[in-house]
């Protein structure tokens, strides 16, 4: 909620001094630190160290570049719960360039960016949403008469770290789906000499974005990442292993058609094409929009949006794993990045098949002998 009596941060004073001075939002600040510590996987006991780190520095500059994108990642960040976006903008960081939010336009906006980058050279955090078009000399995306690639290279130069926010900045996303008309690529394909963290997802959860920024401010480095550059604190586990519907998978209770009896009982969506078994994501734990719900929780199969190239590898979305492009004959281990997900998906398919067979045998075994369809052999096998 909007903290009406919260006060802004004075120049030269730390956040801690500022809070002391105002004497009001200390408690909510600590609650925020606890929340962050938990999301970061540090446990609530680490809240004091998060608080200490945040209290000891001035508001760091954040430059936010928007490239080929839909602005959904900006919107998702606006939904962050703790800190609220108002507190983030006024109290935690100094967002010195953001096309979506900033008051200035045109030359004044570009000057604000240039000034902030010069003044904070080597220290600012660069947040990037959107992909870089590589065809047609980059003319598929320009700002202020320059290609977005020029803007990215320039801003990356003085950045302390880069947060590639969302699937577009990560690997190109929807515009990079076959046939990738503009040659769209992610930040990592252009910038090679800076630490980059990929907040995967289309879009990612706003709270994970905030947590990554706080992680950097708290520990002075980006969080540990997996081979896709995704923070382990958020993307370290498969959806399938954390899913609230997992018990139904194990019990062989599947939704077989939307709005069927299984759907109305909240059963497993595996047969409807759920990509949870091949997807590493914070969705089931962190959930969306103040923990209101998440895609599987709302009855729709996961489409695997935190995995690279999911628009091609996870589609058709309603086909059961592994009968999708990424897992059939033409599966692309190189682009998927690891056999891990493929292996896991294939394993799950085998697992599911075995579970279903087991269920069928068990059901048959429970049929009365006079139903006439249960052979002794099946009963023995059940």
């Amino acid at each position, binding site marked *: 909620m909007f903290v009406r009596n919260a006060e802004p941060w004075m*120049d030269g004073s730390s956040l801690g001094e500022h809070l002391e001075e105002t004497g009001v939002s200390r408690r909510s600040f600590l609650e925020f630190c606890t929340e962050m510590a938990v999301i970061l996987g540090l446990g609530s006991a680490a809240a004091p160290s998060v608080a200490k780190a945040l209290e000891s520095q001035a508001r760091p500059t954040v430059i936010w570049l928007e490239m080929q994108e839909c602005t959904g990642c900006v919107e998702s960040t606006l939904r962050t719960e703790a800190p609220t976006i108002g507190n983030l903008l006024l109290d935690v960081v100094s967002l010195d360039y953001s096309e979506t939010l900033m008051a200035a336009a045109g030359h004044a906006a570009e000057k604000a960016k240039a000034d902030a980058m010069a003044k904070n050279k080597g220290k600012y955090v660069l947040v990037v949403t959107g992909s870089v078009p590589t065809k047609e000399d980059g003319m598929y995306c320009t700002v202020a008469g320059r290609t977005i690639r020029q803007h990215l290279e320039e801003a990356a130069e003085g950045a302390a770290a880069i947060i590639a926010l969302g699937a577009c900045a990560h690997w190109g996303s929807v515009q990079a789906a076959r046939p990738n008309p503009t040659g769209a690529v992610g930040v990592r394909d252009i910038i090679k000499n800076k630490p980059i963290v990929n907040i995967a997802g289309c879009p990612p959860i706003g709270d994970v974005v905030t947590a990554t920024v706080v992680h950097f401010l708290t520990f002075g480095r980006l969080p540990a990442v997996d081979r896709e550059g995704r923070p382990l604190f958020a993307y370290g586990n498969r959806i399938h292993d954390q899913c609230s519907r997992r018990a139904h998978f194990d019990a062989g209770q599947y939704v077989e058609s939307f709005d069927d009896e299984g759907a109305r009982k909240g059963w497993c969506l595996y047969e409807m094409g759920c990509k949870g078994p091949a997807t590493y994501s914070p969705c089931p734990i962190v959930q969306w929009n*103040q923990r209101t719900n998440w895609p599987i929780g709302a009855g729709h199969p996961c489409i695997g949006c935190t995995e690279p190239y999911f628009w091609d590898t996870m589609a058709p979305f309603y086909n059961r794993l592994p009968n999708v492009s990424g897992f059939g004959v033409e599966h692309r281990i190189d682009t998927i990045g690891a056999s891990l997900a493929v292996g896991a998906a294939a394993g799950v398919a085998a697992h599911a098949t075995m579970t279903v067979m087991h269920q069928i045998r068990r059901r048959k075994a429970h049929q009365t002998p006079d139903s006439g369809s249960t052979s002794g052999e099946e009963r023995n096998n059940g």
Partner: protein
Amino acid sequence: MASTKVVVDPITRIEGHLRIEVQADQGKISGSWATATMFRGIETIMTGRDPRDAWAYVQRICGVCTTVHAIASVRAVEDALDIKIPANANTIRNLVHGMQYIQDHVIHFYHLHALDWVDVVSALSADPAKAAALAKSISPWPNNGEAEFRAVQDRLKKFVGTGQLGIFSNGYWGHPAYKLPPEANLMAVAHYLEALDWQRDVIRLHTVFGGKNPHPNFLVGGMASAINLDETATINAVRLADVQGMIKKAKDFVEQVYWPDLVAIAGFYKEWGAIGGGVPNFLACGEFPETDIRDLGSLYFPRGIIMGKDLSKVVEYDQQKVEEYITSSWYTYEGGDDKGLHPYAGETTPKYTGPKAPYEYLQGEKKYTWMKAPRYEGKPMQVGPLARMLVGYAHGHKDIKELVGQALGTLKVGPEALFSTLGRTAARGIETVLIANKMQTWFNELITRVKAGDTATFTKDKWEPSSWPKKAQGYGFLDAPRGALGHWVQIEDEKIARYQCVVPSTWNCSPRDAKGQMGAYEAALVDNHPLARPDQPLEILRTIHSFDPCLACGVHVLDADGGLLAEVKVQ
């Protein structure tokens, strides 16, 4: 006599990448060019995919207008396959789309548009007691007290005092075009901050039914969120109570904060009722069906066209009369770049002919944008809230007529003031009030049906591709927050053979066509339009923002060959 060339790139506080160039003479704008500077080619990517997946891809055309392309897409596929969705699914889509309108319009007003009218720095010198008195004279909103305004002002004072101005850096503070007294500025800044939290809370309605926002889930044939009052993992009383709370919270804020603020601020800027009118034709495709999209008579916002500002008659809309021109766009047509093509016969071959980057000006270039130029019977159109309210007004729609009349009365201006920058901004507020009320009606309908035992949310019979005809085509329309949207899908052998969209910002941001007719942004900027300081283009932002530009939506591309590409298969 020499005119000044002015470039505003980037236009900030919009969705996407927009560049505006103008020529200014003695405080007035005499020429204007609107340029979309990004291209992605989403439609090309649709070919060969499963039509049931299409909503997810095209939804990513825009994350600000999240939901609108997804709904247009499932409607197009349902039209092609003749699927009638259950009444509950239609109501849930109305609720989701309705909340999109409300949240999107409020965000637009406070976070994208307000800083064109509200001087944040001036709020520092306001008297909080007077600000509270002003706010209480227009609204019963409980947070409009002196203590609240003082706290916001103190927060702002210290923020400004840090020298780290963040998103407010280099704003045009103190510009003579800012007319609000400090107290009104303070009130608006307080509500800017409050709206940041409010938007996050009310949009959770999408999350209840679609699992997340932005980009909630949809489904061809209905909605995936099953209803079962006796289960924890489904739509049940807990979730419905949450939705009811959000509907109430949305309505309260719209009626007690957004609308009174809009009217109060408009009162200081009445001259903008005669500025920036531009294109005199308005198109609305209609939206919010009662139970089925095919029942055009049941649309809450009616369909139709107003030509030449003539409110005495509504012209019938026929999608066959839409053509797209690329005379000024970075594409080429096989039959010549001066021809207009209907979307069904459309071609898109991107062909960049502009200057190499970095470049200084595009004015003077024959082709200058990635945006195409749709025309209706050869005429440019405006789409969006103003088009909907004008069509409704001319139709004699009771709710619209009443609220438009009330707004004009309060501001003491005639209907001609609607054809303006201020008119577009006011119309957006008017329709938000209407939808905020309508939400409760839709919610009640859902409850009534569930109470009567109807919990169906999905039509199963055409789900399996084997049940589809070998060839099918469909048209899905939707009047989105930013205006009339259409998706056309052609299906062959269970795959998408062709996919096309005509999008609100394509209409409004279109460049000059073969006849040299300007698009809506361009025409508005040369219609009695001031520009006091070319280096501080505040007035340009006012008019462009009044359209609520969405550039990622506007730029789209058809498949390059223009043919049915059924042979392209995706496994």
